[in-house]
């Protein structure tokens, strides 16, 4: 078979070229610590801790849904070059988290949210309890994550340990203030109106911490579609309690929440769309919402304004 021989030879030749060609590219030398994080929130926390002393890259940019994120070749290079990889964990990153938990044996990798004491974590009430990974909306929990990251980074580069720890503590103090600020702002909403209705269940920790009822239309996964009964039940709740606004999210489609608004209108109750909340990703870089505190403040402002 002549053609088969030719193909065999071609394949061998190609494999040889690739193997030989790939030996030489070693990572460029740089003394700065290189940290790669998955979500922007983690990147923001690390940036506040390390200042200019390290290079920080977040793989998931503004508006990216972590459940649907797909890595590119560039991302892979970033991961390979990283001295430390920080991811959220608790299945926020899906299969990617799975890969990280195995890679942990060869590279320093930290699942930031998995270090939290399990008593703080919320889980669903259906069969097979899965833990809600959206921990960053409880600012007091996020403060714990930041302090833990401070320790991890200090371990990673001992010569800067003190600097990192100090920064982490300073930032943690800002977060204490932010936590109080959020609590006070939410408390100004009349109690009966304190219901936060969004497209998917990302605000469980937020509601738990700041005593605002949270109703999500979808499950935790952004892929599951809301059922007809989910929509009807939500419409019942809104018209019954005369809730003024529902919210959409920047990284999730607002189609299903529109159905709720229309449903309420048909029952004669006007509910507005209160605005767009940041849920799984922060705002664009170089805007106030591009940082963690800015993102939390923006959410709180939108919620308070709409429900008042």
């Amino acid at each position: 078979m002549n053609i088969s021989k030719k193909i065999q030879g071609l394949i061998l030749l190609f494999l040889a070229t690739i193997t030989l060609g790939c030996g030489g590219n070693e990572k460029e030398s740089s003394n700065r610590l290189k940290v790669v994080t998955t979500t922007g929130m983690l990147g923001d926390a690390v940036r506040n801790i390390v200042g200019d002393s390290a290079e920080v890259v977040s793989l998931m940019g503004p508006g990216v849904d972590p459940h649907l994120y797909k890595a590119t070749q560039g991302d892979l290079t970033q991961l390979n070059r990283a001295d430390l990889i920080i991811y959220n964990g608790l299945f926020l990153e899906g299969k990617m988290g799975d890969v990280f938990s195995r890679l942990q044996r060869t590279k320093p990798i930290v699942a930031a949210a998995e270090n939290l004491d399990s008593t703080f974590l919320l889980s669903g009430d259906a069969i097979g309890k899965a833990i809600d990974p959206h921990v960053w909306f409880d600012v007091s929990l996020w403060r714990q994550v930041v302090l833990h990251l401070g320790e991890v980074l200090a371990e990673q580069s001992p010569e800067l340990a003190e600097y990192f720890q100090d920064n982490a503590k300073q930032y943690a103090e800002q977060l204490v203030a932010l936590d109080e600020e959020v609590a006070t702002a939410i408390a100004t909403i009349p109690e009966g109106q304190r219901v936060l209705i969004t497209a998917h269940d990302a605000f469980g920790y937020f509601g738990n911490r700041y005593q605002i009822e949270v109703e999500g239309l979808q499950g935790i996964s952004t892929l599951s579609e809301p059922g007809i009964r989910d929509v009807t039940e939500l419409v019942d709740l809104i018209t019954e309690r005369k809730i003024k606004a529902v919210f959409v999210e920047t990284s999730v489609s607002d189609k299903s929440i529109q159905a709720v608004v229309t449903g309420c209108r048909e029952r004669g109750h006007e509910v507005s769309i209160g605005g767009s909340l940041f849920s799984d990703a922060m705002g664009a870089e170089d805007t106030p919402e591009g940082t963690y505190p800015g993102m939390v403040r923006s959410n709180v402002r939108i919620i308070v304004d709409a429900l008042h």
Partner: protein
Amino acid sequence: MEAFWIILTGTLVATSCGLLGNYLILRRMAMMGDAISHAVLPGIVLAFFLTGTRDTIAMLIGAGLLGVLTTFIIDFLHKRGKLQADASIGVTFTSLFAIGIILISAFAGQVDLDQDCVLYGEIAYVPIDLWISNGGTILGPRAIWISGGVLILVLLLISLGYKELYLTTFDPSYAGVVGISVGLWQALLMGAVSMTTVASFESVGAILVVAFLIAPPATAYLLTTRFRTMLWLTVGIAFLTSTGGYVLAVAIDGSIAGAMATIAGILFAIAFVFGPEGGLMSRRKKQATLEESTVSAA
């Protein structure tokens, strides 16, 4: 090394899928891969209910069992129910997928449970998803071992059962006459298809598997009329697709799986236009010579 591992994984998966795909397209069952990618959902959900975890092993077993079940239901509807192959595939996978959706929305609304989250891998992670022995020795990327093992099994099936698979594909009634069990070989082939697709989903993700199952054999089909050559061509195309796809992905810094599937499509388009057997150009030429000869005869 990164490039090497990714291209090698792509080639291994594309070869396993492509070789089996040759039989599938000739049996008019090319959409089998797409069907299995959807139909495994209830398997994943049930595996989660039984084990309470979303570990890869449990998910793979659940998905694997459903994959086999899917191929058997499709085969049953086609052979016993006298339903067309494409209709059998369509009915089976949509129903199974729907059962999965219902199970999730009824019992697991609070869990992020879908193929994308718990089963489908991503070829970009191949170089960093290493298999490390308990002693701490790094044995290379996990996907290489999985897709390599799958390819060996596929090659064994095809080389040991070459004649049987060939006859049952092209002329099942004659195969029956000469004493080859059509049902048995059909079952073996379908078992191999479901094993290959589910294991490959876990290594490289669904889009690539569906593309590799159809595009390389379809391209080879346009280039030759000999079955043995078609199989060999598929291997060559698998390799070209994987290499070209990786180069494209690096050039545009995009999804590797997407780039490989694109190259598979481009190679098919080239064969479609320029192929010596089924290509547009050759067909036109043949027609021209035919017309000429009719004219000269008259």
